[in-house]
């Protein structure tokens, strides 16, 4: 409770960050000065599809603890050294490159330790292998009862979690809030979301703030299964309750979400990527979905794997990308929807933490990647929604859009060589106003799991520099032994590029406008420019 009191006096950032951003950038010598929010490539023509809170700052603003300065002993000191570190790497020193290398090796060992099975819960929590995991996540109740641990069984960790709760309570007794502990290579981050406490222990280079945001995702994942109302109710009646009883079977959802956070740029950028599709085909699909409506329907979402094909929403109702990510995760980490038509209660916490929606989830065909999610307010409406799906399919087939869709599924991504920029290996481009991003397929040097996570780690690092709470950057160029990186942020877009180590800074700078031109040319295909409502 005390934590909440503290939150209120935090300087919560104004809901829409864009105007502040714009001021900062008006003086900038952007390569394409016209590209302000709303006119950048990929910006929607009409209204946005998502809640207008696409910036990273907006996303974390509701988590007031972020902005609050905590004068924990020692914390200030470590924070300073941390800044020095990032300063060095920004200059592209070979040293930081080496640091990266050793880290990557450790990661490899990690993978080996994990490879013995999908979810190795039997892991010995006193072993060195357990300690060496890159990122641990623990969830516990305020009574100190274990709820979730990423590695090892909760039972084996109950005393560890007891210590965590003791730390939290000890600091709170002084009317303070513990946010993080910095020790050597480790960061321990606490997120207090009554009645839960979430703790992350990380050896990655992610900032405290990003780690907190990941914990927030885990928190919302739990809420999406239970609703906050139910969660509060349970713990009000029985402080000692073992929440694992209610969450039984959902561990793999949380595990998978943590994997996505390590690998999917969408979760980092608060954005969603689309299946490349000619806009004429997409429009037909959208309008077919739009026509197959029902009274209780709020959102109709068509997914191809982890890519959005289209999203139709009720007028004036917006979906938050965080909620969409939770839906992605639900569908992506479960084969259960392949058995038939799924009908499940789901809370979309960014929409409303109090109640359940009911989602009709089904694949268009048994072996297809195309998954349709119909989100309804009425739990009795299953057959009605089932009928919506049938009508949608019928219409799609009649207008031969189904074929175009199948065709597009064969090339769900594109190669970076299509852009035609020398030395460019990979990039991630996010249009801020539409909340959509595009990125080519992962190139050969990064295709292994470890390398993919290392590349993501680099992007995460750039991202945290660009969104530093007190000293945000507009651009960064970083030379490393294995690749050169460039990040560029304006009020309209965020761009992260990865070049081969042979590239030069001049080439990299020239690449920006060339790439933007290419994206502009392809935006019809790569983005959803005209989102539909019922």
């Amino acid at each position, binding site marked *: 409770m005390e934590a909440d009191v503290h939150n209120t006096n935090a300087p919560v950032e104004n809901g829409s960050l864009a105007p502040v951003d714009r001021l900062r950038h008006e003086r900038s010598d952007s390569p394409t000065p016209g590209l302000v929010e709303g006119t950048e490539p990929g910006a929607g023509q009409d209204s946005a599809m998502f809640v207008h809170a696409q910036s990273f700052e907006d996303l974390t603003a509701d988590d007031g603890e972020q902005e609050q300065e905590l004068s924990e002993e020692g914390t200030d000191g470590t924070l300073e050294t941390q800044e020095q570190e990032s300063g060095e790497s920004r200059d592209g020193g070979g040293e930081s490159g080496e640091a990266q290398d050793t880290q990557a090796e450790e990661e490899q060992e990690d993978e080996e330790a994990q490879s013995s099975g999908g979810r190795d819960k039997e892991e010995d929590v006193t072993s060195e292998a357990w300690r060496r995991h890159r990122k641990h996540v623990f969830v516990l109740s305020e009574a100190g009862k274990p709820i979730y641990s990423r590695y090892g069984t909760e039972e084996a960790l109950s005393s560890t979690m007891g210590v965590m709760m003791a730390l939290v309570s000890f600091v709170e007794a002084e009317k303070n809030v513990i946010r993080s502990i910095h020790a050597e290579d480790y960061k321990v981050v606490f997120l207090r979301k009554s009645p839960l406490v979430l703790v992350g222990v990380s050896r990655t280079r992610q900032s405290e703030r990003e780690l907190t945001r990941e914990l927030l995702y885990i928190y919302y994942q739990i809420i999406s299964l239970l609703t906050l109302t139910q969660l509060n109710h349970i713990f009000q009646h029985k402080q000692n309750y073992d929440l694992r009883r*209610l969450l039984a*079977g*959902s561990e793999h959802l949380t595990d998978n979400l943590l994997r996505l956070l390590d690998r999917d740029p969408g979760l980092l950028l608060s954005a969603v990527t689309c299946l490349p599709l000619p806009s004429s085909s997409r429009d037909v699909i959208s309008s077919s979905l739009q026509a197959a409506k029902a009274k209780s329907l709020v959102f109709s979402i068509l997914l191809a794997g982890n890519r959005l094909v289209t999203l139709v929403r009720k007028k004036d109702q917006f979906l938050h990308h965080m909620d969409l990510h939770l839906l992605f995760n639900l569908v992506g980490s479960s*084969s*259960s929807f392949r058995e038939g038509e799924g*009908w499940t*209660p789901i809370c979309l916490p960014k929409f409303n933490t109090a109640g359940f929606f009911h989602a009709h989830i089904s694949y268009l065909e048994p072996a297809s990647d195309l998954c349709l999610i119909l989100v309804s307010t009425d739990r009795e409406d299953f057959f009605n929604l089932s009928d919506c799906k049938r009508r949608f399919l019928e219409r799609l087939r009649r207008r031969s859009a189904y074929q175009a869709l199948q065709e597009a599924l064969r090339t769900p991504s594109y190669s970076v060589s299509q852009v035609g920029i020398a030395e460019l290996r990979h990039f991630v481009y996010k249009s801020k106003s539409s909340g959509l991003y595009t990125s080519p397929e992962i190139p050969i040097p990064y295709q292994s799991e470890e390398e993919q996570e290392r590349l993501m780690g680099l992007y995460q690092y750039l991202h945290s520099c660009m969104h530093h709470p007190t000293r945000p950057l507009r651009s960064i160029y970083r030379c490393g032994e294995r690749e050169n990186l460039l990040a560029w942020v304006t009020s309209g877009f965020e761009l992260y590029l990865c070049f081969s180590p042979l590239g030069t800074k001049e080439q990299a700078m020239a690449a920006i406008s060339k790439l933007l031109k290419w994206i502009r040319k392809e935006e019809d295909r790569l983005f959803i420019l005209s989102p539909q409502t019922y």
Partner: protein
Amino acid sequence: MSSHRVDAKVVMLGKESVGKTSLVERFVHHRFLVGPYQNTIGAAFVAKPVQVGDKVVTLGIWDTAGSERYEAMSRIYYRGAKAAIVCYDLTDSSSFLRVRFWVKELQNCEEHCKIYLCGTKNDLVEADRSVRQVDYHDVQDFADEIKAQLFETSSKTGANVDKLFQKVAVDFNSTAFQVLTEEKGVDLGQKKDAYFYSCCHH
């Protein structure tokens, strides 16, 4: 929840991981998927036509999640069900405790729902008798007591699975006929009653 597409609503109930989804999978798709256990989220619906004599009965099967999390929701899945297949794992005695819970729940809320008890994973028992934790005769006694039918199935080998669902369809077919004739009789009586009451009130 009702639909014109299905004749009989059938609901699968039981503790998590007893194999409800595998049972449905075997019946509907004639296959047994080997792989890591995947729990059902919410519930899954499949419709499957079954031949009964010269008639076709379409079973609308609700495969519910066993997790306690969805317990509060379970009513919407079993409401109006004509048959409930309450499953337990022959090799896990604790799963039979949940059977008693579901039977009680059905008796209280859906008195017209026919109950079928289904002991799953019989192939494990056949391979090694010592793994059996739920005695056949104990369950048979319980089944007699609650007027339920008992099946022991294996989704892996397919043993007894079709028999179980066939029985559900046959039973539905015969009771559907009964209900229809009964209703006619009741209808006539009601008319009389209504007439009688309206007389009184005027």
